[in-house]
């Protein structure tokens, strides 16, 4: 059976052109970039050329603003923990939101154990942070605001440029986790007005285990990984040369394909959402109707539970994800959906489909058919659906 992959927010397949660019750095050009002889110099050159590419695409003023890391999570950790300790004398207050990725939330929770105070801003029903709420939360002890560019579960895009004006006016640093936006929104750090920005290669058809932290010149960071002098002394460890080359190549392709990909994905997304609503009743769209990532569809099917939907889809060859507690092994459903005010039942019934550049309308039509059958089958055995119908008949 042909598999239909609709979980591109989780990860993406590596583009063959990226694989090709990476391969020589596993074999012929295997040298350690810190070595002074030819093999080392070749590897070093590959890293520095990659850094230049990334700097250019992100609108960095200086290649030293680009720090390669071991993942998007590490970039988030370095941004937040790195600023926290470097600016500890200035203040101990950090502002973030309730819907951040665990790489941000757990880092903030860890800092709370070490004397930092963290404000977790609420979001509205669409997952948006109010810029005024950011303004009101800033005190003279605030050193950092960390808000994600787009949410990985519901795809809501935050007004980062607008928030930046407020944060900058107060002389506070701004970090954005842009892991979900590369390849979906043009990423110009200067236009966004951020001091720090995180990326992860595997979300834009690059390899897993490599990320970037953009850190604007003059932003002080305390290093997390101690050892050698790699990455401007901010990240010790022999560089993942092939990974870095792959990240740069993937980002280059993503930036070049943006104009063509975004409208196509947005059209497929809207088609899929409209069809779901016309074919299945008791459905709720989670996230913002328009301010959302072009490939993101997040819907709750009332009276059924997400994991059972995913299992059914998987049996029919379809890969998607859910915010239900039962899929994560946690006791609570998605913290993002709960922060948006969804009742637990509705959060448990959420399914996220994230479309990628290779998905087709035909695939989506097949998925719609399977989805309709699946929801009908699961509702037929759900006690909640019966009760609902009973209420209606009365």
């Amino acid at each position, binding site marked *: 059976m042909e598999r239909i992959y609709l979980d591109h927010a989780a990860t993406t397949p590596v583009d063959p052109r990226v694989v090709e660019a990476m391969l020589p750095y596993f074999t012929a050009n295997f040298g350690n970039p810190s070595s002074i002889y030819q093999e080392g110099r070749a590897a070093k050159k590959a890293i520095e050329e990659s850094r230049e590419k990334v700097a250019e695409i992100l609108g960095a003023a200086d290649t030293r603003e680009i720090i390669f890391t071991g993942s998007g999570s590490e970039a988030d950790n370095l941004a937040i923990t790195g600023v926290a300790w470097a600016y500890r004398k200035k203040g101990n207050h950090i502002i973030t939101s309730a819907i951040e990725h665990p790489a941000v939330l757990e880092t903030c929770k860890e800092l709370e154990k070490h004397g930092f105070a963290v404000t977790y801003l609420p979001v509205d029903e669409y997952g948006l942070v109010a810029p005024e709420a950011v303004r009101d939360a800033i005190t003279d002890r605030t050193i950092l605001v960390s808000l994600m560019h787009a949410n990985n579960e519901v795809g809501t895009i935050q007004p980062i440029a607008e928030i930046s004006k407020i944060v900058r006016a107060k002389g506070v640093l701004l970090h954005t986790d842009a892991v979900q936006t590369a390849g979906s929104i043009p990423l110009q750090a200067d236009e966004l007005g951020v001091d720090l920005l995180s990326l992860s290669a595997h979300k834009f058809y690059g390899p897993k285990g490599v990320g970037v932290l953009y850190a604007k010149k003059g932003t002080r960071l305390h290093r997390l990984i101690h050892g050698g002098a790699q990455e401007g002394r901010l990240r010790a460890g022999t560089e993942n040369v092939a990974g870095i080359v792959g990240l740069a190549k993937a980002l280059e392709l993503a930036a070049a394909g943006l104009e063509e990909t975004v409208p196509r994905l947005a059209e497929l997304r809207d088609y899929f959402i409209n069809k779901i609503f016309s074919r299945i009743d008791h459905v709720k769209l989670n996230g913002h109707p328009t301010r959302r990532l072009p490939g993101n569809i997040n819907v709750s099917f009332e009276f059924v*539970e997400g994991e*059972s939907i995913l*299992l059914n889809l998987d049996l029919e060859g379809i890969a998607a994800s859910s915010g239900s507690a*039962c899929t994560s092994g946690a006791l609570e459903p998605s913290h993002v959906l709960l922060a948006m005010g969804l009742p637990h039942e509705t959060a448990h019934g959420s399914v996220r489909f994230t479309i990628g550049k290779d998905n087709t309308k035909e695939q989506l039509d097949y998925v719609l058919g399977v989805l309709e059958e699946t929801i009908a089958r699961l509702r037929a055995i*759900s*006690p909640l659906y019966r009760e609902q119908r009973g209420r209606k008949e009365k």
Partner: protein
Amino acid sequence: MYTEAVMDHFYNPRNAGELADADGVGEAGNPVCGDIMKIYVKIEDDRIADISFQTFGCGAAIATSSILTELVKGKTVAEAEKITNRAVAEALGGLPPQKMHCSNLAADAFHKALEAYRQNRPKPAPAAE
């Protein structure tokens, strides 16, 4: 992550639906944790003559409900009553550890259905009034 038995019961649930003339109905779980199981029993000559379930929940919740109905159907009430959540999980060849709690409550729902049956049942020797 699931055994073949779980997937079989999930995909082909046995005795799913409502029993119109049930002698007892029991429910376990709650929507907050994401799993609700409802068991309907029909008792004849002190045996589980018929049984069915309705479940809102994950694959494990549906499979445990389904296999429970098979495990107790046809048994005497006294025999059937001995069923535990653990025995249900074992009959499925085991469940992932995180599913042992809120997704594995079918036996609880069944015990509640029997309790309801006892309370509904007209008393054999009505007390003099």
